[in-house]
């Protein structure tokens, strides 16, 4: 009998939710479109922009160098940069992005090099500006090659082998599987997205089923029916949970599809492979399932918490103003998990949301720390149960239901 009532409420709320445009948009459309737009769209945009920046022939101003024709000739012959004559306002020109960089060859540079006197070639640029850094890179590369050439000649002149200056090489090599490398880089963002979408999915139904019901005057109608308030709140809770999980499931699904599409496209061309090597993320069914499983108690926590808070509001609008700040409460720990160097510790594994985000990072990278998984799952379940308990208690309180 009791579950029957919960089921009746659930089915009715489901019917209403499906007919509500706002709920459909936030639980179905947003997660389905967000990942393709974000990953494929944004990814493609980034590639195009970086490509364009690389294609542009940056203007580099040459300062001095009249007495160093070899170096200057070499610079002029460089592919993909344009050497422009010196003007006095060169600094402003860099700042205003009229030229991308300036290279200063000291007076008597070539003669100094020949005479084994040390000089400094200065490159002026706009730090952090992509196109300026490309120009700088090119000039710097050329100057370093020239230096290596000079070294070679000097060693040759003294009959010394090159190993005099390079007794040994130092190299590093990645042994982690590629999916773990990209997992470390992108796992954080996946956990973040799933958590955030779980929340947005729960948000609209949570408001609609509580404050919305008060606002539309149906609260008194439903409270006058024989259903117990506990069954009523559970029926509502399960609908909100469905929305949260539905959003999470759809987002994980669409994320998997987006990444595989992205992976497919980038592997078509050699340039794409190179550019996207750090981006390709293999999301197997196991990963997707484990991320989803971890999202389960989080969804319960969100659904119960949002429902409780929204229940205090008298109108939809009021509920919105209570729940919007909640987004920040969720986003901050979720973002914290994305910061480099933040890793799971026993203490962090007890902080709600942050713990799950951190765990998702590991899961996407294919690492299963079972002790952490159990601590986090258990602690989140405890928080979720507490939130649900409070929600049920609040629903029994007249001061909350009939707040005026």
């Amino acid at each position, binding site marked *: 009998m009791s579950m029957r009532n919960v089921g009746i409420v659930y089915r009715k709320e489901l*019917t209403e939710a499906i007919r509500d445009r706002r709920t459909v948009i936030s639980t179905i459309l947003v997660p389905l479109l967000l990942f393709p737009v974000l990953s494929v769209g944004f990814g493609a945009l980034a590639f195009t922009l970086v490509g364009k920046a690389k294609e542009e022939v940056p203007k580099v101003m040459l300062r001095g160098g009249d007495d160093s024709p070899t170096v200057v000739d070499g610079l002029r012959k460089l592919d993909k940069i344009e050497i422009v004559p010196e003007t006095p306002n060169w600094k402003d020109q860099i700042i205003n992005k009229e030229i991308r960089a300036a290279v200063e060859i000291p007076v008597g540079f070539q003669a100094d090099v020949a005479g084994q006197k040390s000089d400094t070639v200065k490159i002026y640029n706009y730090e952090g500006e992509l196109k300026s850094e490309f120009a700088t890179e090119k000039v710097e590369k050329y100057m370093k090659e020239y230096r290596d050439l000079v070294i070679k000649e000097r060693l040759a002149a003294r009959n010394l082998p090159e190993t005099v200056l390079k007794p040994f090489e130092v190299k590093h090599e990645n042994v982690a599987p590629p999916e773990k490398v990209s997992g470390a880089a992108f796992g954080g963002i996946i956990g973040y997205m799933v958590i955030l979408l779980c929340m947005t999915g729960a948000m609209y139904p949570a408001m609609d089923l509580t404050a919305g019901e008060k606002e539309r*005057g149906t609260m*008194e109608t439903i409270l*006058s*029916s024989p259903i117990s308030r506990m069954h009523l709140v559970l029926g509502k809770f399960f609908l909100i949970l469905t929305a949260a999980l539905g959003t999470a499931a759809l987002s994980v699904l669409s994320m998997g599809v987006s990444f595989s599409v992205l992976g497919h496209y980038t592997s078509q061309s050699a340039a794409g492979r190179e550019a996207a090597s750090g981006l390709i993320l293999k999301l197997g069914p196991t990963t997707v399932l484990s991320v989803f499983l971890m999202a389960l108690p989080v969804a319960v926590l969100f659904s119960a918490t949002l429902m409780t808070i929204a229940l205090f509001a008298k109108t939809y609008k009021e509920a919105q103003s209570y729940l919007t700040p909640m987004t920040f409460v969720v986003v901050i720990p979720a973002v914290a998990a994305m910061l480099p160097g933040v890793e799971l510790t026993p203490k962090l594994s007890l902080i709600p949301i942050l713990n799950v985000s951190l765990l998702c990072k590991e899961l996407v990278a294919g690492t299963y720390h079972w002790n952490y998984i159990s601590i986090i799952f258990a602690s989140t379940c405890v928080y979720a149960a507490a939130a649900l308990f409070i929600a049920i208690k609040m629903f029994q309180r*007249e001061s909350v239901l009939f707040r005026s």
Partner: protein
Amino acid sequence: MIEARGLSKRFQDKKRGEIRAVDNVTFTCQPGKIYGLLGANGAGKTTTLRMLATILEPTDGTAVVCGHDVIDDPEKVRANVGFLSTATALYRRLTAQEFVEYFGRLNGLDEATLKKRIDNVFNRLDMNGFRDRRCDKLSTGMIQKTSIARTLVHDPLVMIFDEPTNGLDIMSARTITAFIRECRDQGKTVIFSTHIMSEVEKLCDTIGIIQSGKLLVEGSLAQLREKYGEQDLEEIFVKVVTPHYVAEENN
């Protein structure tokens, strides 16, 4: 049958301290009779009726509805009560039929009984023309009928109406008053609240005048006329309420 015994409701208000919305109210409503609760806005009518419908819990005293105590057995009380007020709105995204079905199911009707009841109620109220229309697309009259259908679907013994005609046009209000009479004629126990004198004069077997949460006077219209020596109910009401009203204003 409804028996209110020392029914009281206190609220805590931050500014005004403790408020006695309903203060030690005792009365009885008999089956086949209409009890009218007459009072100004804020007199305690709604709170009293909400306590009888177990939407609010009394802080003191209790009431027994169809043999069930409102505090100990609220769900059984609600199963025997049809509650209608202008505040009891419809679920806008459901159709009229879905809406009534929902409340039938919540009242524990099985699907076969539910279907029979719905057909019966919809025929009786002439609602078949808008059965499958969504509630947000209904006219005021249709909304009234749908609300009535909701209160009837489980065939309750007690009907509670909280200012049922408030804000309605004449035709819609007449639908409601006709429905109230019909309930009485079927032998249901009916209690309703209003501040409209003419409704009370026309409908009520017993009148209770309530002010500041207290039930001041109770009796049939004839008894009240005799007691206060006035024919007009409004004059009687003013005579009864004025001393309390003035006291409250001064407070």
